[in-house]
């Protein structure tokens, strides 16, 4: 591991100042991803600013009925918080399906947003080609081992996926990421927070180098209990998803008034299945309607030789999540 300067930020502005003055700075939350990457030599910051003492560790009700999750709240606390359990069970379920209790006890909300891909070639500097790790070096996964890689949103430069469970649920809940920087405050809807790789897979989010995530705000959920998070993985715990799916449905009688369908582990970002959502709105909740809608989305999938299985697996996972959310299962 390379030597680095370590400091603790007492205020948000102090943290921003360090980010401004020293571009090679990383903010340290729980460290569950960043420290691993530093050990492997993938992240080599000159400075670490510990933000765990900032007053961002609360979960509050918002005046209009939503909730604000501070950036340094631990994943375990979010998952167990009464407000989350009552109004956003989908989020709690997604969180609890991720990592292990020990990791969740450390990992923060902001860190979860910023975690990096688990692409094999990114994670091992012994592989010389990875555009995300070394821009311009090529992508080893395209013709290599890509069983866990993207079927949506990838490019010829990168087909790595975003590994988070939490963020898939956040996307289904229309979360908004709150950001502070030298130019003031910004609100970034989670659907716009992540960039697709294009030719610049090393740039992963809209967050600018001198900005800090302060909270994740959730509007009042129109779905309530009519939501489901389903994760399919190689083993039953402590494994990243092969595919996952968050679904929320608002019904009027048996007619779908509103719906969110978001896929995880199949794209460089939580993948909102807009085609499927549009097809479902106004339809009666039924197996056929759900199947047809998911098929519409799956038609746009671009699997490669080694991850074709994700297409049928994701379709079945999405159908099951939607049907469970809609109360049909």
């Amino acid at each position, binding site marked *: 591991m390379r030597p680095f300067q370590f400091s603790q930020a007492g205020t948000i502005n102090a943290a921003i100042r360090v980010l401004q003055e020293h571009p090679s700075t990383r903010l340290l939350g729980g460290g569950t991803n960043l420290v691993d990457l530093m050990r492997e030599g993938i992240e080599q910051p000159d400075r670490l600013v510990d933000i765990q003492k900032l007053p961002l560790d609360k979960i509050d009700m918002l005046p209009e009925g939503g909730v604000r999750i501070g950036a340094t709240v631990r994943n375990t606390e979010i998952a167990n918080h009464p407000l989350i359990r009552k109004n956003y069970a989908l989020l709690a379920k997604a969180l609890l399906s991720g990592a292990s209790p020990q990791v969740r006890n450390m990992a923060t909300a902001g860190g979860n947003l910023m975690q990096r891909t688990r692409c094999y070639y990114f994670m091992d500097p012994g592989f010389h080609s990875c555009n995300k790790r070394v821009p311009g070096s090529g992508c080893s996964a395209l013709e290599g081992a890509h069983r866990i890689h993207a079927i949506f949103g990838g490019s010829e430069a990168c087909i790595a996926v975003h590994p988070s469970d939490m963020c898939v649920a956040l996307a289904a809940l229309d979360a908004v990421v709150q950001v502070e920087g030298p130019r003031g405050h910004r609100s970034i809807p989670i659907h716009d927070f992540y960039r697709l790789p294009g030719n610049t897979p090393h740039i992963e989010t809209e967050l600018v180098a001198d900005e800090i995530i302060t909270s994740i705000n959730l509007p009042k959920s129109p779905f309530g209990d009519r939501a489901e998070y389903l994760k399919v993985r190689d083993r039953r715990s402590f494994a990243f998803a*092969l595919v996952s799916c968050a679904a929320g449905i608002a019904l009027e009688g048996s007619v779908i008034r509103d719906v969110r369908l978001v896929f995880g582990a199949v794209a460089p970002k939580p993948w909102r299945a807009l085609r499927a959502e549009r097809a479902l709105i106004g339809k009666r909740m039924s197996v056929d309607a759900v199947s047809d809608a998911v098929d519409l989305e799956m038609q746009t999938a671009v699997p490669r030789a080694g991850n074709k299985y994700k297409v049928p697996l994701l379709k079945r996972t999405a159908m099951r999540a939607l049907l469970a959310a809609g109360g049909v299962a």
Partner: protein
Amino acid sequence: MTVQPRWRVDGIAKVTGAAQFGADFMLERLAYGVPVLSTIAKGRVRRFDLHDARSVRGLIEIITPSNALRLPNQGIHPELKDAPRIAMLQDDGVYYSGQVIGLAVAESLEAAQEAASLVKAEYRSEDALCDFEAQVASARPPQSGGDAAAYARGDFAAALSRSDVEVQAMYSTPVQHHNPMEPHATIAHWEGDRLTLYEPSQWIVFVRTCIAVWFGVPEANIRVLGPFVGGGFGGKGALWSHSPLAVMASKMLQRPVKIALNRREVYTVTASRPRTQQKVLIGATKAGELLAIRNDVVLQASPQIELIEDSGTVSHHLYKCDANATSHRVAILDTSPTWVMRAPGEATGSYALESAVDEVAYRVGIDPLELRLRNYAEKDQTNEKPYSQKLLRDCYTLGAKRFGWEHRPHAPRSMRKGNQWIGWGMATATYPAYRAASSAVVRISPDGKAFVGSATHEIGTGTYTVLAQIAAEELGISIDQIDVRTGDTELPPAIYSGGSLTVATVGTAVQLAAQRVKQLVIQMAVDDPASPLHQSEPAQIKVSEGELILDRNGARERYADILGRQGGRTVEATAEAKPGQEIERYSTHSFGAVFAEVGVDPDLFTVRVRRFVGVYDVGRVINKKAGINQLTGGAVWGIGMALFEGAQMDPRYGRSVNMDLSEYHLPAHADIGEMDISVLDVPDLKFNPLGARGMGEMGITGAAAAVANAVFHATGIRIRDLPITIDKLIERSSNHSQ
């Protein structure tokens, strides 16, 4: 065993951190070494750029082939014919990706890591052969020849032509990495011309020999210490680059040097279980009689060592079958070396054979257990010898009863629970029982306490406890009065701790030494006019609770009192145990029957092992708690082998893509359902005086096949390429009736 302690004698030391494992020893002026690993698969290092690395604060030295100590002997040596050729920085060759090509040594681990990461190697690459499947066609017989190359009995072609059904199938198993909790680590410390090596090893005596030969120093000048080993599974049965390099660095720098490998380094600096491809052909009658069994195996090997995990051998004797043929060929790859892993041969071989036998059962429409009973081998047909003890029929019967096998419908996809398909599968477990030569010393000190010493190893299996129990029973001294030491080459020499032979081998040596030392003390009492046992008949004296007791009249005296009158003398005896005539007379194997229930999601194809029953005959079980624990661990590993585990090679790089525990999946607790593991515990006294055959390897054998057969029973899909993962099942299911 009459003495069955509730806990391990070293349990408290382990959980409190008092037990010192390889990397735990703290020495004055300890320096830290971190290896530099190659990132090409084959070629030479043309040039090192050490400029950046040398600027690291705290760096002591960077060792590369240009400044490495020249070793008088290296590589293959007559004394070391079983040792892999490992990189010791004696030349600039690169033979695989992840090979040691340099070593950074620094005042701190962090500085050594940083310097190692800054070493830039310029390579001249050569074409490397890293694609197993592409090399299968050019696989060749192993150089070792013999039965491993080819074995045959009976007229195979004739037997096959008499068969009503033929099952021919190809089974594949992946590279598996040894993943003991404790990664490999070495501390080397030269003081003048004497070397102390702290090495968590399964074979410290061999470590001493290797280092003595390589460095050209007498064995007497080397002491190897490894009092606790955090698991080995075969991976610590040899010496890998980091050990001689720590020795070299310590010699060059005149200070102790520690090299502790991280998980990723363990995967390539040491070795792994070879990938196998097994082509099995079985001919059977309609009644399920097995007439012909053949297994043609291709194994991965490397130029470093051609070690044969003989997957085919298990099919020589597991069933009564007059026509049998196997062959092993090796596909030489420019990848990190292959080496034995728990149940070498049987783990992979029993998967293929027991899957194929299951396929036969479906072809002839006979229950898989019934089919096995119809082909029960009463003797070992490879040598026509009887088994020293074979209670497999009891294992089948008891296992089936515990599992409820009689309620099993034969057809696949015929059982459901909730929205899950349920499948039941079974298989036979087996592993040879070995003994080897080993020695032990037993002493009784004037305070009546005993000492047991042998240069064997505690690799997590409970050696300290078991040896204490054996000595306690012989000496009549309670376990808490017995101090056992292992993992020190100053103690009487012992064989490696592998092949499930420690209890049968070292346990027997301890038993013999304890008997001798007991006789010495009895003789002292009998000869001593001051003893109440004076002039008694030695054969009538028994021992119990620290006392010698005369059967006839209850006259008794404590060990401490007898020895106290001898001027505080310690009495000791050393014994060597060797294989006896049992190998001439008998075939010696352990057996077991394993049953698995899986639940499979019919859409998503997630598989979970809900229940697992294993009943084993391993002879006498000295310590039930440690023994069942070990069998359970082995079975869990077998479940992992079936469903999760395997390195994924990227042949373009000659490098695995999943070289960490995040992506190299072992089972998590949530993957393991109810484990019902038991033993018959019938002493096999034809095998050795203890009646114990050993059990370390047994648990993994058969387990993967039982799970794979259960997955077939649940789904009707037979995946013949481990691990059985969701992608394989879903791809096959879409070609299926779905």
